[in-house]
């Protein structure tokens, strides 16, 4: 199987699985317990937290473990909005966010919050000018994803942060689920985002593990209430094995970052040339300016599903624009936001690379895709 759907999820590293098993076998005590075994789990948890804090360049206490990207995004959005009603009830986000951001914000909208959705250009990028215009005195939260999951557009996070911090009191949340471990992602003193969401299973870690991290101490309301774990902000017995596995996956991702980024870039530009050779029957949604590990494109007058099946027959796994929405029959909101030509809106497929992707996988894809195009389009 040639797996080119790493933005949906990744295969866990062997080392990460080993860590998960060993921690479950040897350090299964509740880190909140006061007996020796508990203290030991707690020490291990602290080490995992410190390791991630170091990568993100923030203080240890500003890293909280969650059950994944969706929880981190929900927590950031509800937590900041609910704790800061005294400042206002206005939220800004973009049209192309992940569903876990959009649906959370829609729920707040139904609750009386005002929301502005920033539009994007044909490359999927927001306009900083529009952001500046939409910012208000009572804006409490701006949520902008770093890398779009469906086509890889990279938002100008640093410039957005400058505008947000200079012109409002809003907290700036960045959904970095698709970028962390694939590109450099970290906090900066007095600049950049305030909150970052991270998911374990996108970086060869485990499903059901994520992180929400803060640049500094923030006024945020907990999403989960209970025993007051994670500095009172995220109740529930902390899943130490998941946390340690995530710390390991993050370390490995960051250590391999230089090599993987180089590979992704090479493959993306190689496949760009390859796809352009099919001329008018292919429309590229991704651009070379976008994230190098995501490449999405569309075949004229074809359903994405058909392409996926045809490639799968040849042992190649790709997805329609996003795994989360691929089971729903409606056209993706991202594809629509990009003003994709009508003949192409249904045929979008996405290739996404990971740290385990090889040169051979890419060559195999090219051979299979050429065959498929011959079969389906007579080209």
């Amino acid at each position, binding site marked *: 199987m040639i797996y080119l759907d790493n933005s949906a999820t990744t295969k866990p590293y062997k080392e990460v699985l080993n*860590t998960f098993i*060993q*921690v479950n076998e040897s350090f299964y005590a509740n880190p909140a317990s*006061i*007996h*020796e075994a508990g*203290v030991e789990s707690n*020490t*291990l948890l602290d*080490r*995992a937290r410190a*390791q991630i804090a170091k990568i993100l360049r923030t203080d240890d*206490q500003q890293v909280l473990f969650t059950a994944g990207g969706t929880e981190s995004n929900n927590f950031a959005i509800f937590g900041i909005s609910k704790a800061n009603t005294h400042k206002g009830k206005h939220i800004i986000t973009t049209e192309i966010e992940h569903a876990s951001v959009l649906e959370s914000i829609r729920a707040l909208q139904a609750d009386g919050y005002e929301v502005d959705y920033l539009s994007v250009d044909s490359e999927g990028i927001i306009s900083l000018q529009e952001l500046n215009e939409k910012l208000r005195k009572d804006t409490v939260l701006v949520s902008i994803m770093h890398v779009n999951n469906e086509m890889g557009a990279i938002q100008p996070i640093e410039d957005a942060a400058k505008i947000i911090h200079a012109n409002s009191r809003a907290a700036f949340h960045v959904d970095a689920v698709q970028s962390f471990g694939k590109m450099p992602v970290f906090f900066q003193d007095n600049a950049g985002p305030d909150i970052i969401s991270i998911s374990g299973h996108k970086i060869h870690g485990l499903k059901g593990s994520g992180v929400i991290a803060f640049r500094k101490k923030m006024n945020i309301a907990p999403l989960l209430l209970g025993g007051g774990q994670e500095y009172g902000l995220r109740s529930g017995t902390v899943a130490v094995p998941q946390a*340690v596995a995530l*710390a*390991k996956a993050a*370390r490995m991702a960051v250590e391999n970052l230089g090599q993987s980024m180089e590979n992704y870039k090479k493959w993306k530009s190689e496949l760009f040339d390859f796809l352009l050779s099919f001329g008018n029957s292919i429309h590229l949604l991704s651009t070379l300016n976008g994230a190098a590990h995501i490449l999405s494109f569309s075949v004229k007058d074809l359903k994405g599903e058909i392409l996926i099946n045809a490639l799968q027959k040849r042992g190649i796994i790709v997805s329609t624009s996003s795994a989360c929405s691929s089971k729903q029959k409606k056209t993706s909101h991202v594809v629509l936001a990009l003003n994709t030509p009508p003949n192409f809106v249904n045929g979008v497929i996405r290739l996404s690379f990971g740290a385990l992707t090889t040169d051979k996988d890419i060559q195999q894809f090219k051979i299979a895709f050429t065959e498929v195009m011959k079969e389906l389009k007579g080209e």
Partner: protein
Amino acid sequence: MIWKEILIRYGELSTKGRNKKDFISRLRTNIRNTFNDIAPLKIQSERDRMHIEIETEEQFEILMERMPTIFGIQSFSPVAFCEKDIESMKNLSLLIMDQFKEQQLTFKVEVRRSDKSFPFESHEIQREIGGHVLRNNPNISVQVKKPDVELRIEVRKDAIYMMAQIIQGAGGMPVGSNGKSLLMLSGGIDSPVAGYLLMKRGVRLEAIHFFSPPYTSDHSLQKVKDLANELTKFGANIRLHVIPFTEIQTLIRDRVPSNTMMTSTRRLMMRIADKVREEVGALGIVTGESLGQVASQTLESLTAINDVTNTPILRPLIAFDKLEIIQIAEQIGTYETSIQPYEDCCTIFTPANPKTKPKVEKVNYYESFTEFDELIERAVKNREIYRFPEKNETKDKFADLL
């Protein structure tokens, strides 16, 4: 990387007359200790400054990170070298000023020309280099009186030295240059701050902690160890003496009226601390007491507790407000550890109404029915001693997992 050495200025040390040599060698040892986890440093010390050679970028980052916490350093600067010709000097000055290019700021060039044979005079160097920097950096302008950045150029026999940043050090005196004291470390907010302040004045510390299992947990002991470890980053090793205190504490509870219990407990702690102090050759005992903060810290209580020894008891926080103490604790990074909510031996068996004005004679009288000496001997003998900074081996059973 352009930086080749770090230059350290001593500050208060420089005025210390005949003891100066001792202070400087103490500082050098402390610096070596602080960085003993990286390759041995090449340190060269002079009368009023010290030079540390930089070999790798990684080493430079670690040096810059830890240097501000070492006592006895007034300020320090990263230094670059170049050949003794005006072209190399121009190039280097641009490289150094490059770090400021994004900011709008003022600067001046300051020249020290100890090698008088160098063909350019100080003001010529100033003009050449200053002009060159200005031409290449539109954001930078000249301001002679109070510049944001001072580009210092030193013309010495062997090379040209250049620096542009003067980073504040921790001040104070090198730990160990003013003798040794024993710190009573409870695990609360105050005692680590008291230790820190004494270290700042050059006092080397050992720490003592009273451990009463099962009334206090391993968590609370771990917290104290963490605090001791955190204090070592100010430039010295610390030994922590953990006294098994359960037996004595329960005996006090059974033998002494409950409103005097707290005073007696403190007195017994003080007696034990004094024994340990004597054994380790420390001169004083340091506590985090602050006047009026709790019942045991009224002048009457302090008198009753102090009554058991003639050793100088150093209470650097005696006149500090709680908020001031918290502020320092946050600054030195012990606050987060201190506020972890575990029982320590001071909070167990707390009577509802402890005496705030105990009388020495009465306390003596109550204690006179119990023979504590032997128990004290035993507690001191059975103490466990931990050394900080911790060696990496103990921590690294987790290394493979992470």
